[in-house]
């Protein structure tokens, strides 16, 4: 519970000074806009980490035959 409060407190610290406009014909809602501004950076970092982890896993999990074929092709 304490951990969760800390995380939320960190989010609020980022959100506190932000203000959202309305876009197009659909009201985007302030909470949604501020949330995106706050989590965008972390989400990007998470996405690239996952892609990197998948590449590492892919490198080590190459099937032997596939690895041989790849080596022969070199």
């Amino acid at each position, binding site marked *: 519970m304490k951990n969760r409060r800390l995380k939320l407190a960190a989010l609020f610290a980022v959100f506190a000074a932000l*203000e959202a406009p309305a876009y197009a014909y*659909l009201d985007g809602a302030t*909470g949604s806009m501020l949330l995106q501004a706050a989590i965008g950076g972390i989400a990007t970092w998470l*996405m690239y980490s996952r892609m990197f982890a998948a590449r590492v896993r892919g490198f080590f999990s190459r099937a032997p035959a596939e690895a041989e074929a790849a080596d022969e092709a070199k």
Partner: protein
Amino acid sequence: MTAAAADRGSFRDPGSRIFSDGGRILRAIMPPAASAYEAARDSGLIADLVGRRSLLASEERDPACLGLEAAPAYVLEHPRLPFVSYPYEWGFALLRRAALHHLDVQLDALAAGFALSDASAYNIQFVGPRPVFIDHGSFRPYVEGEPWIGHRQFCMQFLNPLLLWSRRGVAANGWFRGSLEGIAPEELAPLLSWRDNLSWTVLTHVTGQAALQRRANSGRLNGGKARAPRLSRPAFEAILTGLRGFIARCRLRDEKTVWRDYAQDNSYAGAEAAAKRAFVAEMAAKVRPRLLFDFGCNSGDYARAALDAGAGSVVGFDADHGALERAVGRADAEALDFLPLWLDAANPSPAQGWAEAERKGLGERGRADALLALAFVHHLAIGRNVPLAMVVDWLVGMAPVGIVEFPPKSDPMVRRLLAARPDIFADYDEAAFLAAVGVRARLVRTRHLSPGGRLLAWYDRG
């Protein structure tokens, strides 16, 4: 000039509205939205999505063909869908599928330099169990740094109902039907546990967003200088792919059980079932309905029989979510043009929304050419106290031809319904059933599945 009628559910986007003209479906793109449409069309995005069957097909027509006073810049004609369904009629598998499809369209659009102007679940329709995006007016050029305008709507109409279902085990249909905009993060957040919040997606998109929205509503975020939150393109893409991964992993608590049951159901056999399938096949082969309704569709055994015999497409209805999940599994596995939807037949989807016309009632959307109501009438006539004649009246009114099954009081399933209550159903018998059908339609043929047992009645109003 034609007599095209504006669709009463298509008014929120002034740039793009739907009209119907006889059986034709036409979309008017108004001048302020013309440049966005032209950009999406000329970039190849629309043709690419249509080619992959992600987006409903369209063809440009003469803009004057609608005869509108304020002339549209473009008029597009779309193929007519077999049936228009609403998100509150989808089971878990279909809602998850629709959510993933929306995100896929967003990601494809973003890759081509476009964004969607909303995230309405009503912009997804199903052809059989396959989702298709229908709103050509949603695409507009992406502006670097802009936030995801439809984020809150996506959460309310896709993510939150799925979370209610998968985390709390509560089907979202009733809530969604009563609240057409979906479930707000502020409404869902108090229902989630601290364990649910160990998920980054739940913590941010539900709990965090709810807290921020409450804060904004209380006026505590309104004092600062107005400035637009910036969301870089990689961050936009990361939020979309993060949600996509989370939703693809979203499961019902008993999903494995459901699939195991489907495999068992798949070997559905027995002499009575075979006789029923043959009777259904005979009707479907003779009538060849383009669209057939299957009330009480269960996992789709008889929908399959009708499709095999010549029905064009089948929309099934059932109130049992387990049966619906199995039916979707069957439609996928056997590549059937079969759309299983949630329906409490004693309280069918009403006309509702703005002016009670934005979302149509079941009867208004129903253009079925034939129907099946097998092992169905006793649930209404005995389970819900709807007089038998009224049940027959409603069913026969839904399609000009059909097969209705009557299980007598001696049937084990009817006995089960009567086990815990007094039998106040003096009019529930075969003679009364046949008389009720007879005053509304011609009886083409009847067949008993066993002596004194269930009766199948094939009626024809023509």
